[in-house]
């Protein structure tokens, strides 16, 4: 008893990130990626408004959970099957602003699809980031299959699949989760619950508060986490990834968050949500929130913040210039890669 109490006390003195085994350097990298993603995202909106990009779909507001999730995985070994909001996630895994801006501007050399697909349809063979499509939720059974292959070959790779709460209404989610549960597959289901599927509020998508409550029906745990709290997200993701890696099966992680911008550059969110609601959520923006923690912990001072900001700006500026200059794909590319070249 006495011992336990002592231990608790020692732990209590430790900062949250220390109990999670994260160093100050780790935190800075996480923070920098969140900032980079935000700056890049803002640039993309600008390029879209300037008419240089046909379409943009944004991850703004989702950065904390995305970077936390990416950080909890093992790059080079694990698999990511992300969805269109996951820019911060793929950035953390090694996709570059240049690559992402090539994609935004539909330029040749864009690694996900050679500009066949819209931007934000991530994919990167070398980084084990699986090619995504537009039809919502289709990636979920595929991720389960990827995890099954790892299990069959007795490799300890974990697969992370991300999707919005809207995607959980689809049969794809159900059939995938069910199978993963049966075979205790090394997969983590990450639901980025931002309350809306385009304009449809959660209350019209499901009769429950927490998507995580569906997990018991598939025989594995479901966890709810504040998606705007990067360390909380890292903590639950770590546990989920460890479980998966140890062969204990899947976890459904539901990260509650909000997109602080319209669904996409084609959307006008004023038709379906109040400005007050949006403003309320902007106050919970994960980036300032994490910055406050870093400052409090003495990890980031004003100088450090300036450095990160200017590093991000520089990267994005250079990438913009690069991507704007890059050529569009040759029209003949439209006719390739239908089948393996003989």
């Amino acid at each position: 008893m006495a011992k336990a109490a002592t231990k608790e006390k020692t732990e209590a003195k430790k900062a949250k990130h220390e109990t999670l085994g994260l160093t100050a350097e780790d935190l800075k990298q996480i923070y920098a990626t969140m900032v980079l993603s935000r700056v890049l995202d803002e640039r993309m909106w600008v390029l879209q408004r300037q008419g240089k990009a046909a379409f943009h779909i944004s991850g703004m507001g989702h950065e904390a959970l995305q970077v936390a999730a990416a950080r909890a995985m093992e790059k080079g070994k694990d698999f990511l099957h992300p969805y269109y909001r996951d820019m911060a996630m793929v950035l953390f895994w090694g996709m570059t602003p240049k690559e992402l801006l090539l994609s935004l501007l539909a330029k040749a050399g864009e690694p996900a699809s050679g500009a066949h697909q819209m931007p934000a349809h991530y994919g990167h063979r070398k980084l084990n980031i699986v090619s995504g499509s537009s039809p919502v939720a289709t990636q979920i059974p595929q991720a389960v299959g990827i995890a099954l292959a790892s299990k069959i070959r007795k490799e300890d790779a974990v697969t992370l699949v991300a999707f919005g709460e809207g995607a959980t209404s689809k049969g794809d989610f159900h059939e995938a989760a069910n199978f993963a549960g049966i075979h205790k597959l090394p997969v983590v289901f990450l639901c980025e619950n931002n309350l809306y599927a385009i304009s449809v509020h959660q209350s019209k998508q499901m009769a429950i508060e927490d998507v995580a409550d569906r997990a018991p029906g598939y025989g594995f745990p479901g966890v709810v986490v504040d998606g705007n709290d990067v360390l909380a997200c890292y903590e639950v993701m770590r546990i989920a990834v460890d479980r998966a890696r140890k062969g204990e099966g899947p976890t459904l992680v539901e990260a509650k968050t909000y997109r602080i911008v319209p669904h996409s550059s084609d959307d006008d969110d004023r038709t379906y949500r109040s400005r007050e609601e949006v403003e309320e959520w902007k106050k919970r923006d994960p980036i300032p929130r994490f910055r406050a923690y870093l400052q409090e912990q003495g990890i980031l001072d004003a100088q450090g913040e300036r450095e990160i900001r200017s590093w991000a700006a520089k990267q994005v500026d250079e990438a913009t210039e690069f991507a704007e200059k890059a050529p569009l794909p040759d029209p003949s590319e439209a006719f390739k890669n239908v089948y393996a070249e003989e």
Partner: protein
Amino acid sequence: MAEKTVIQAIKEAIAEEMAREERMVLLGEDIGKRGGVFRVTEGLIDKCGEERVIDTPLAELGIVGIAIGLALNGMRPMAEIQFADFIHPAFDQIVSEMARMRYRSNGTWTCPMVIRAPYGGGIGGGLYHSQSVEAFFAHVPGLKVVVPGTPYDAKGLLKSAMRDEDPVMYFEHKKTYRLVKGEVPEEEYTVPIGEAEVKREGTDLTVITYGLMLHYSLQAAEEVAKDGISVEIVDLRTVLPLDKKTILESVGKTSKVLIVHEDNKTGGLGGEVAAIIAEEAFDSLDAPIMRLCGPDVPAVPFSPTMQEAFMPNPEKIAEAIRKLAAY
């Protein structure tokens, strides 16, 4: 008569039918407050209430399955699929269930309902927001499949679809929404399902087409007219059932046929149309039946250079017409 766009015509048809027929119910993603991502159902939730304009979860199988249930129990549902590309999860409910309900129950249970979906490329939609899907459904007995090209036809056919005793697939080309304008009468009218229309008279050859390609073909016809080639244009409007009579009459008159569609060539509608002609109007033919279609690649690529390479357009059509005329 007023000039209206295709999308206005569709909006009017829905609003008028919702007012006329209280059994009508709309279901789809974002069709409520948001009024649909293309604003086709704008304002209807306020006018008709949440019970008749239902924002569904993101679940196309469910949308169609539930709509079938509504139809079985006396309602007249119209389901919106946000983009035709996303209709595939509902394929089983459409093909195995909706299309066969009458047949499988020996006429005792029926599915009078409409599924609407915006389709087609040329709008920067990329691989998954550009697909033409009509050929899949034109192979399904029990369905009717409508693909209007003009505001007049869009309104008249949608009204017919909503009043039909059988399930109707209604595909509207996104690019025609605001691009194509035309006269739409104020007074009530319908356009019958299953009737093609000669949209341009001509004598040298017939172009058979529908949807956006109708307009590109009309432009191409104007272009080649300058070279003295007289093109007749048949707008199919309904692709199941096909209006053989109008097709064969035109072929009988011109003896040469070019079929134009945006959908992939292989296995597309053009095959069926060509087969009908090769079987039933063989003796009238003076030249090979030609097809100008979307190429056999999975879908319309996003990048403008590749999209351009994919899409048939007035220039490509004019070129094909010239080639056929010269045969």
